[in-house]
């Protein structure tokens, strides 16, 4: 095994790329869960975003349009979930699962004509002299726009939740929907907005896979990333910056694992491939033992019916 082939700057640069899909999906799901809704359909929304984004990007030759389409696609799909769970009060767990199953089918259907199609090139954001900094340049400043946008979304979510009235109302709704309703806030409307935002973010995350990271369309290409994003929110104790931390840790692990495979480590490939999932489980276990899961919104997953 030749570990010298692993370059730390390249490792960190590719870590950021590898983490971006789950970071986007995770931060979106964080907002949804903060409003008190558990949407288990992240995987389905991601894969739908992946196919929408790829299709539009390839046809228009424009990555930005692709990402926009992915966000719209993910949001529309999430609103099916929103309508069923918020208006028709269906079970959130079952409906989220249905969303994942439906999304996998729908994406495969939409992606029929795009299997094997070559993706488009996405150029890094020209950051001028920053990109030429020794070491830091290739590590941090030669990425495509979505990497920076994902960071901006994390910062924005953090700031909105923490400093704005809209964020306050969102948190209050997730905390105690009965009290929020009693104070005159429209629980259902707030939650629908959060669900749509989560769908858009998951769509972006999926599209990042198909447009930038792979870049190609294959059926089922998200391979559990949506579920890892869900675990990420638990890991982060529902805090935005910790989602970033978790996503980058996970991204680092994935990249390291790929590098070890490439370097010819004497470990079966399959063991390395399953490592991210096993570690996610391990982290979940560590978090839930001890003090137990902390920071979960108190109304998470509970059904709300305005009986008044």
């Amino acid at each position, binding site marked *: 095994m030749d570990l010298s082939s692993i370059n730390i700057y390249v490792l960190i640069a590719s870590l950021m790329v590898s983490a971006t899909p789950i970071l986007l999906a995770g931060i979106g799901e964080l907002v949804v869960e903060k409003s008190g809704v558990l949407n288990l359909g992240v995987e389905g929304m991601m894969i739908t975003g992946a196919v929408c984004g790829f299709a539009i990007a390839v046809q228009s030759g424009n990555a930005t349009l692709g990402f926009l389409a992915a966000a719209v696609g993910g949001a529309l799909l999430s609103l099916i979930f929103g309508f069923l769970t918020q208006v028709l009060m269906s079970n959130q767990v079952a409906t989220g699962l249905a969303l994942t199953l439906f999304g996998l089918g729908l994406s495969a259907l939409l992606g029929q004509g795009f299997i094997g199609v070559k993706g488009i090139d996405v150029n890094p954001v020209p950051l001028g002299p920053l990109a030429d900094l020794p070491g830091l340049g290739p590590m941090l400043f030669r990425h495509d726009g979505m990497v920076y946008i994902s960071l901006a979304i994390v910062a924005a979510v953090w700031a909105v939740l923490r*400093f704005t*009235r809209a964020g*306050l*109302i969102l*948190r*209050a709704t997730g*905390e*105690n929907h*009965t*009290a*929020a309703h*009693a*104070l*005159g806030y429209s629980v259902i409307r707030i939650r629908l907005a959060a669900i749509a935002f989560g769908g858009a973010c998951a769509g972006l995350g999926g599209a990042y896979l198909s447009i930038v990271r792979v870049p190609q369309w294959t059926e089922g290409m998200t391979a559990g990333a949506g579920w890892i994003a869900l675990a990420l929110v638990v890991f982060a104790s529902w805090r935005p910056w910790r989602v970033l931390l978790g996503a980058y840790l996970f991204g680092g692990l994935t990249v390291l694992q790929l590098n070890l495979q490439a370097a010819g480590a004497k470990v079966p490939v399959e063991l390395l491939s399953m490592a991210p999932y096993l570690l996610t489980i391990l982290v979940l276990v560590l978090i839930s033992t001890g003090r137990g899961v902390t*920071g979960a*919104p*108190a109304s998470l997953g509970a059904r709300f019916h305005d009986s008044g």
Partner: protein
Amino acid sequence: MTALLHLQGISKSYPGVIANDSVDLTVEPGEIHALLGENGAGKSTLVKAIYGLIKPDAGQMAWDGEPYAPASPHAARGVGVAMVFQHFSLFDALTVAENVALGMDHPPRLRDLATEITRVSQDYGLPLDPRRTVGDLSAGERQRVEIIRCLLQNPRLLIMDEPTSVLTPAEADILFDALRQLRQEGRSVLYISHKLNEIRVLCDRATILRHGQVVGAADPTAASAAELAELMVGHRPEAISRPVHHISEIQALTVSQLSLHPRHEHDTPLRDITFAVSEGQILGIGGVAGNGQDGLLAALSGEQPTPANSVRLFDEPIGHLGPTARRARGLLTAPEERLGHAAVPDMSLTENTLLTGWRRSNLAHNGWLRWRSTRDLTQDVIGKFDVRTPGPEAPAQSLSGGNLQKFVVGREIRQSPKILIVNQPTWGVDAAAAAAIRQALTDLATAGAALIVISQDLDELAEIADSFAALNEGRLSPVRPMAELTTEDLGLMLGGASKIATPQTEAAQ
């Protein structure tokens, strides 16, 4: 002078209950007005109408002499009515300032609001740090959040629903000072309570409600606690005719130094509860809801295990045993919440019989359910206790409150308990069903079983109990024979003033 608020002939009824029956009430500017009555007397319904949460069926309200009919709390707040609820509408994970902001229609910036909160809290002597998380606050501090939320809106009438039920005596004194200051500023307070002592020290006038009707007005500073208690509780009814029965020397259940941590937020802990009940005896435990009744029932039923020796059944330690093992030994219970605790709402009566009867009534042989026996038993309960239902296959939630309660109590009585513990057996139950349930309970005691009846209804306990103790903030007063107690004693014990009323201290005086 125009009254601030004038109510005339307010009536409101719910299916099966008349909550308010032609109630008149006048609140003057700058007074603290007590609304006094037992639980279920209709106090909360009345203030909800004033705050715009419900619409009365009949009657008029006037505010400053103008007709007043608030369509929503928002409208009520608009004229200057503010209300502090008994169960707070707070968000535990948020800070004090955030909670206050959420309750305001046009909140200032959070930083300015924090300054404002600090100022108001200092002005009224209600210390509160706006940056703290509400979940970490004590009950008294949580209440302050609600009060300050109200005060920031500059109200002319502040309604407080049982504000001291969650306070320690020291916290209550702080609150009273703040309320007096409000009075000095010319604001009015409508103060709902059943605690006589505090009304006497705090309020200017009192209106007393019983069974939804105004039964009198009094000057609490002049009237004695005994007079107020008499008005509130009413005439003590004659004990129902029951055959002379024998209270055995054998103690069926002994509880000693039973303590229980709060099982969830807003739960009252149990502190050092000690009592015993004998075969043939009915022990009545009175007290306002939320003083630890649910916890006591859970500890006695076995849902909440405790140290083995804290609960003993015929001298066998059973504190560590679960509900099934306790039932097998003859300890049966009927909790307050009928749907979702005592019974599964969607399941049939037959299935609900199985719920508590499978072991003691041998309805599951090696795990195999004996549906025919279960149905027969259910049919028997329905017949014996006059449960009005289409049949044993009707789902529990299709029954009226009274009929379901007859079923729940009957289900346990039919299994011949050695000791039966019931919590609020006639709460929300129509009069006929309530009478039937009480009769069934006394019959059970006459037959030799020990009974514990936890109830908020003093009339009920006076009617059926042999002895009485009051549960107050998780503490149980000494047990005293019912026959010795005057109406005044009952009122005082409930108010947590049991110590001054024990015979020993009387003798010492």
